[in-house]
C-alpha cells in the first residue's frame, strides 16, 4: 500500500468527521466528529513517519493522542455543564449568540 492510500484514507476519515461536526444535532455527536478528524490527522502523521523514516511523526502522534484525551475530558465537562443549565444538548437550541 502506497503513501497515497494512507493519505486518501486519512482524507476520507477527516471528511466524515467534518460532516459529523457540521450535521450532528447532539453535542456529543459533534465531539465524536472532532475525534474522527483528529484521528485522521494521526493517520497522516504516522504514514509520513513510516514512509519518510522520520520519528518526529510518531512523537507528534503521541502528543496528539494525549492532548485529545484532555480535550475530550474538557469537552464532555462543558457538555454536562450546558445540560445542567439549559436542560438540553441539542446544538440547534444553543444559540445565545444569535445576532
Amino acid at each position, binding site marked *: 500500500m502506497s503513501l497515497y492510500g494512507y493519505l486518501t484514507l486519512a482524507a476520507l476519515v477527516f471528511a466524515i468527521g467534518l460532516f459529523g461536526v*457540521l*450535521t450532528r444535532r447532539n453535542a456529543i455527536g*459533534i465531539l465524536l466528529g472532532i475525534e474522527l478528524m483528529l484521528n485522521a490527522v494521526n493517520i497522516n502523521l504516522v504514514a509520513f513517519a513510516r514512509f519518510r523514516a522520520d520519528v518526529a511523526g510518531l512523537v507528534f502522534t503521541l502528543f496528539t493522542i494525549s492532548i485529545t484525551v484532555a480535550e475530550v475530558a474538557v469537552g464532555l465537562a462543558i457538555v454536562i455543564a450546558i445540560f445542567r443549565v439549559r436542560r438540553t444538548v441539542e446544538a440547534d437550541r*444553543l444559540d445565545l449568540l444569535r445576532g
Partner: protein
Amino acid sequence: MDLGVRAPLLVLGLPFAAFLVLAVVAPLRRAGRAAGAVSILAAAVAHVAALGVWRDGARRTATWAWIPADGGPMATVGLLVDPLSSAMLVLVTLVSLLVQVYSLAYLGDERAPALGRYYTYQSLFAFSMLGLVLSPSFVQMFVFWELVGLCSYLLIGYWYERPSAARAAVKAFWITKLGDLGFVVGIVMLWGATGTFEFQALFTKAQEHALAIEGLGTIMFLIYLGAVGKSAQFPLHVWLPDAMEGPTPVSALIHAATMVTAGVFLVARAQPLFALTPDVLTLIGWVGAFTALLAASMACVEGDIKRVLAYSTVSQLGYMMAAAGAGAAYASVLHLLTHGLFKALLFLGAGAVIHVVGTNDIFRMGGLFRVMPQTGVLFIVGTLALAGLPPLAGFFSKEAVLAGVWEARMTWPFLMLALTAFLTAFYMFRVVFIAFFGRALAPGHPHEAPWLMRGPLWLLAVLTVLVGLRLGLAGGDAHHGPGWLAPASVALALGGILLAWATYQRGVVDPARLAGTFPLSLLDFLARRRYGLDALYDGLYRGFILGFSRLIGWIDRYLVDGVLNFLSAWTLRAGDLVRRIQSGQAQDYVYGVAFGVLLLFVWAQWWRR
C-alpha cells in the same frame, strides 16, 4: 510714567473702578441708590480731574506696548491728551455726572436692583467714552468704539421687558455694526498699507507726504462708514429715533451729547488723513448736509417730543459732519461741544416734562408753562440755543459751521444747511408752543419736577448762556464768514420761530392747510412715512436676510441632514441584513470556516499559478 499722564489716567480709571466695584459687589449693586452714589462720586471726581487736564492744556501722550510682534509691538494702548480730547473729556464727564444725578430722581421709582444695573452700565459707558476720546491709535479707538456701542445697546434696552425697547436696542446695535464693519476693514487696510495704527505716526507720514498710498480714498471712505453708523448719518440714521425707547437721561447722555458724536470726533481726530482725500471729504460734507435737511423735515411732522429731539440730534450731527467735510474741523468740534450742552439740556427738560405728564405726545401736553415755569424757561433757553439765536452757544457754533461750509464753496450743502436752520427753529418752537403754551390740558396734576432734576437743568442752561457769552466776547475766531452771514442766520431762525408762532400759537396759518398745499403735501406725506427708509430696511431684512436664512435652512435641513439621514438609515438597514449571518450556532460558524478553507485551497490550486 510722567506726572502729566496721571490726571487723564485718573479720569479714565475712576468710572472703570466704579464699574468694577458695582459689577463685582452684588449687594452694593442691588442697593440701588447706594450704587448710584458710587457711580456719581466717581463721575464727579473724574470731572474735577478732567477740568484740571483741560486747564493744563498741555499735549501729552503715553503708550504701552500691547500686541507684541517681531520688530516692535504691533499695537499699543495709551493716552493722547490734546485740546480736542481734553475738551471732550470735560464734556463727557460733565454730562455724565449731571445725567447720573438727574437719573436719581427720574428713575426714583425703579426697583433697587434695576437702578443698580443702570448705574453699573452708566459707569461702564463713561469709561468707554473717555477711553475712546483718549485713544492714541485706531485699534484702541475701535475697541472703545465697540464698548460704547455695547453700552448704548444695554441702556436702550434698559426696560427690556418692553418688546419695543428690546427691538430698538437690537436695531441700534445692528445698524451701527453695519458701519463698524467698514471701520474695522478700513483700519486694517490702513495698517496693511502703512504698518501702523498710531495717529501720531500716521499724521507725521501725512505731513511728510509719505502717505501717497494707492486706495487711500477707499480706506478713508471705509473708516468714514464707521462714523456714518455711529453718528446716525443718512442712510444709517434710522436707529437713532428708535433708540428713544431707552430712559430719557440715557437719550440725553448717549444719543445726544456723547456717543453719537463719536463719529464726528473720529473725523475730527483723523482730519490730517481725511485732508489727503478731498473726494471723501466732499462726500462727508454732502451727506452731512443732506442728513441735516432730511432729519429736520421729519422732525417737523413728529408728535413724540423725544423723537423730535432725536431727529434734531440727527440733523445737528449732519451739521457737524458737513463742517468736518468742508475742512472746518474747528467749527465741527465747537458745534459738537455746544450741541452737547444744549441738547442734553433739552432732553433732560423733556424728561422733566415726561416725568410729570406721563406721556411723550406733545398734543396731549399744553399749558405747561403755567404749572412748571422753571422747566419752561430752561427748555426755551435750550430751544433758542438750538435755533441759533445770539448770545447763546448754539448761535456761534452754528454760524461757524455755516461759514466753514460757505468758505469751502459748497453752495448746495450751504443752502441745505440754511434751510435746515429755518426748519430747526420752526420745529423746536412748534414743540414749545404746543407743549408749553398750547390750549390743550395736560392730564393729571402737573407740577414742577424735583430739585434733583431741576439742578442739572439749571447748570446746563447757565453753561449754555455762559459759553455763548464767552464765544461772543472772544469773537474773531469763528467769524471768518462773510458779513451778511450772522444777520442772515438770525433772520432764518426768527423766520422759523415766527412761522411756528403764527401757526401753532395765533392760529393765523392752519397747519393742516399748510401741509396740504402742493409741494409741502408731498413732503408731508413722505416725512410722515420717514421717506420709506424704515420700510425699505424692513423689506430688505424680510426679503433678503430672512429669504437667505430660509434658503440656508432648507439646505441644512434637506441637503446636509438629508445626506446624513440617508447614510445612517442605510447603515441601520444593512446592519439588519448582515445581522442574520450571526445565527449563534457554532456549527454554522464551523461550516463557514470549512467553506473558507476549501475556497483557499481552490484558490491556491488554480489562481496562484
